[in-house]
């Protein structure tokens, strides 16, 4: 097997708080291969962003990596600090966030931002960088790129800004892109444009993408594989088709069943009782057991089977015939 672009092994993140240490990410492992889109899905507070921020070294203190390893193209990167991490971030890892304005400097034209990024990371001349910047903007579908390159971020609509951010994330030709809810703030028609763009660029260039979202529909359309997170842990990992059509983890199943679907008509929606546990009050055993219809004694006591060997972190994974 070829080395994955990104490999996260048993990653944990801790935050010391007044009420004790909490673990927003707890023993998570997954890989993202070349040209692959890994969807990371889960409800808010599941630890999706924390896991992504850990990879790019952008955890806000006092949150810190407390265990595990992060490998990028065969090189261990979790111990990197300061300047080394910053260089890696621009060059090898591109980032796209929900709010495009967090990635753009309001005081610089988008052309300056693109050329500066390229000049920092690529051995090219300023003139060449500008030409490439125009090409990059054309590639992400900015109409009239050659004229608009000297515009400021506020002169673009939300959808166009997110396109600029994608151009910026990709311009130094990174091998990995982390996109954290890149379409959550956008309307469906613009979301469809951005997802299609992201898919095309990733597949054309062989970029590995970690696509973080709470939206199962986006996962279904964009991702090749999916990691379902719950309360800081991995609940299920597999190909999108497997996980979404025959989910094994009762949480994944509950999540799918509570989404209104055309095929279900107007009958009552499935409800997962209760809510995700607070990090300060994590249940023993499987974190999902208080809400799980299949929970037995073993679920309340024993630590879970690792997802590395199974598809779901569950003692009693659902059988295909239990899922319709």
């Amino acid at each position, binding site marked *: 097997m070829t080395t994955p672009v990104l490999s996260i092994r048993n990653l944990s993140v801790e935050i010391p708080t007044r009420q004790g240490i909490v673990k927003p990410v707890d023993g998570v492992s997954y890989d993202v291969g070349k040209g692959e889109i890994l969807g990371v899905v889960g409800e808010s507070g599941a630890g999706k962003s924390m896991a992504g921020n850990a990879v790019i070294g952008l955890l806000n203190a006092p949150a810190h990596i407390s265990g595990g390893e992060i490998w990028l193209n065969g090189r261990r990167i979790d111990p990197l600090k300061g300047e080394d991490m910053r260089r890696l971030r621009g060059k090898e890892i591109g980032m796209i966030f929900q709010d495009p304005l967090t990635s753009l400097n309001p005081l610089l034209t988008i052309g300056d931002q693109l050329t500066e990024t390229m000049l920092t990371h690529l051995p090219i001349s300023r003139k060449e960088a500008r030409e490439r910047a125009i090409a990059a903007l054309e590639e992400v579908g900015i109409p009239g790129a050659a004229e608009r390159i000297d515009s400021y971020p506020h002169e673009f609509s939300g959808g166009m800004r997110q396109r600029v951010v994608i151009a910026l994330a990709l311009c130094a030709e990174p091998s990995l892109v982390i996109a954290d809810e890149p379409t959550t703030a956008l309307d469906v028609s613009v979301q469809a444009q951005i997802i299609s763009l992201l898919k095309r660029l990733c597949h054309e260039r062989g970029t590995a993408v970690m696509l973080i979202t709470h939206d199962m529909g986006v996962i*279904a359309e964009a991702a090749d594989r999916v990691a379902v997170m719950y309360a800081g842990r991995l609940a299920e990992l597999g190909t999108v088709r497997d996980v979404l059509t025959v989910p094994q983890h009762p949480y994944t199943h509950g999540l799918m069943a509570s989404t209104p679907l055309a095929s279900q008509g107007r009958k009552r929606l499935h409800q997962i009782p209760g809510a995700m546990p607070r990090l300060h009050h994590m249940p023993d055993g499987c974190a999902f057991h208080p809400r799980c219809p299949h929970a037995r004694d073993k679920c309340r006591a024993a630590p879970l089977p690792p997802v590395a060997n199974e598809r779901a972190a569950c003692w009693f994974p659902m059988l295909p015939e239990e899922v319709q």
Partner: protein
Amino acid sequence: MSAYVTVRGLTRVFDVSKPWLNRVLEGRKKAFLTAVSDVDFEIEERTTYALVGESGSGKSTIGKMLVGLLNPSEGNVEVEGVNLMTEADADRIAASRSNIQMIFQDPYASLNPRWRVRDIIVEPVAAQGGKTEGLAEKLLEQVGLHASDAGKFPHEFSGGQRQRICIARSLASEPRLIVCDEPTSALDVSVQAQVLNLMSDLKDEFGLTYLLITHDLTVVRHMADRIGVLYLGRLVEEADPETLFNTPKHPYTQMLLSAAPRMDAFGREVPPPQGEIPDPIDPPSGCAFHPRCPIATDVCRKDRPAMRALAASKVACHLAE
């Protein structure tokens, strides 16, 4: 069945001009934004009418005009036969208004953090001088919380629980119509399912009528009896859910439905929609959708299409068939 609400020619224009001095210095004219333009619809009693559209299409503005938080620039809202715009009898207007309540998207912003849940819930009744004894406790249980929650503060609740509190408050004055503006858009899907089920139960139990405002097509399909699709402040199509989802007639509706992510569409490759929503201050001529419409012709650029009946739908498009 009879129409509980009738909306006719509803229009709202906002003055979005810069301050006078800036206009003089920069030599600019006054600027107006037509947020809602000539909208007609009826809501049958005990049904759910959904308004769907992308952001800025005028959904919230319509909702606010219905509950009286905003005045229409033109047009009429009639509730149970009382025309809220022209009725002279202030008591009749007040009586109609008290039959309408609204819940909002953000359950964090819409609850006063310094008030106890009890006071928040009974406020609409207390404001009218009504009896509030035990009311909050009863309503809390009806929305799936505990009577003992009445003494707590909003920050002690999760997003989904807060939306239940908002719903409890909206029920306090025993309204007949509730305008729900993106009631689940800030919630996770599993919590959304709880809130949508609750809304359906309450509708059956109290014989409520809903105006459901949302951009989420899955929610619309699940909840609505009738759907109006808005684009740039105008209704472009209206139909029942089966008809709308199976045979959308307006090119915008078709675009919206094909763009919505589908859980059964693994790796689907469809050409994404073209273009973006135009500037509402300077909307396109004729049919406002024409710059993005794949079938537009000259007539679309010149003339605004009127709403017309087409099979089981109503559609404002020259070419839809």
